[in-house]
């Protein structure tokens, strides 16, 4: 499980762990039923406080992404796609907000931005077909 902690922005570390695990699960890089590293092991790997990892795991559990089985560890839950539509929207909305804020500063109106996104989108698809 590869997670990267960034301290450049103010996102709390436990939230970074939560959202990256969610992404790993939704992209299939973490399989249903797969075991997550023990709290202590992940803490040592990422060099973060074990309580931070424990908190991230608790959040992931209450979000239904993982289940913890007493004594044996934490596993990716097999309750289908763990990322709800709302969650997916939230991830993209964060990026869109950042894009919009920058567009305003660079004096692009919304139509310009949408046109640019479309252009990039068609290039992106062509690139993938290669």
């Amino acid at each position, binding site marked *: 499980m590869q997670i990267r*902690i960034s*301290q450049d*922005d*103010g*996102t*709390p*570390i436990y939230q970074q762990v939560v959202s990256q695990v969610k992404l790993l699960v939704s992209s299939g890089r973490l399989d249903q039923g797969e075991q997550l590293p023990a*709290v*202590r092991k992940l*803490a*040592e790997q990422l*060099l*973060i*406080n*074990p*309580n931070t990892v424990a908190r991230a795991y608790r959040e992931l559990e209450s979000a239904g992404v993982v289940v913890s089985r007493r004594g044996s560890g934490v596993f990716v839950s097999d309750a289908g796609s763990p990322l709800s539509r709302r969650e997916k929207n939230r991830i993209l909305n964060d990026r869109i907000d950042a894009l919009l*804020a920058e567009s305003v*500063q660079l004096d692009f109106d919304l139509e310009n931005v949408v046109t640019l996104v479309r252009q990039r989108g068609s290039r992106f698809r062509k690139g993938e077909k290669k």
Partner: protein
Amino acid sequence: MTENVIDIHSLGRTFGKKQALQDVTFSVPKGSVFGLVGENGAGKTTLLKHVLGLLKASSGSISVFGQDPVQEPATVLGKIGYLSEDRDLPTWMRIDQLMHYRSAFYPNWDHEYANELVAMFDLDVKQRIRSLSRGQLARVGLLLAIAHRPELLLLDEPSSGLDPVVRRDILAAIIRTVADEGRTVLFSSHLLDEVQRVSDRVAMLHGGRLLLCDRLEAVLSQHSRWTIRLPEKAQTAPDIPGSVSCRGEGNEWSVVCNGQHEQFQRWLSEHNGEVIEQATPSLDEIFVARVGG
């Protein structure tokens, strides 16, 4: 209720006329990683020496495991692992001799764990302390501090002047210590990104006084950083109510607030300023804002 490993109450210390610590009060709960930050000469080392019982309080009190470290040095020190800032180790000894010597002081010395650490840190135990590099010296100091699996680990500037590989070893040792049920770490550091990574709690010392002390999360969430644009250019930083620092030039300023953003925002609208960006500052930025003045 959480049990405290260290209780410091109104601690004061003078060296001659110099007030090194003044009215310092805080507690270190059991099982926490507690980061102590402050500029050089802020009193961090002096404070740690009081915890060790190496210095006697001029006023106020300090208790460690419920005991006075000056009155009960043997019981208190037996439960503490300490890495000093200057790593004052006997230069003429070999690593194995030093380990043997130190183990005699600690009934709980874990020889197996010590040997594991030797292998992990890639040390040659036949080497003399004087011939060690800075990084190896830090590793030996760390080994000596944790091989008796202390209930309280005190580290004074453990990472300063070390390369990233050795710094990782030190952080991993902090994490391993606290992951072992109930153990506590108190460390001082200038590397605030490291403090932000591993601590649950932080205390900031400034000129011998405690500037803030809280859960790390609370410290981070109470402070906010605003990039603002003012209609008129200014030469010197405007004095904005509710802010703890304001830096920049001309029209654009970066303001750090502690809690009181309403006051700040009121001022901003009165002066027709606009907010360009609002963000959560890092511990490093908070430190510079609070201490750099």
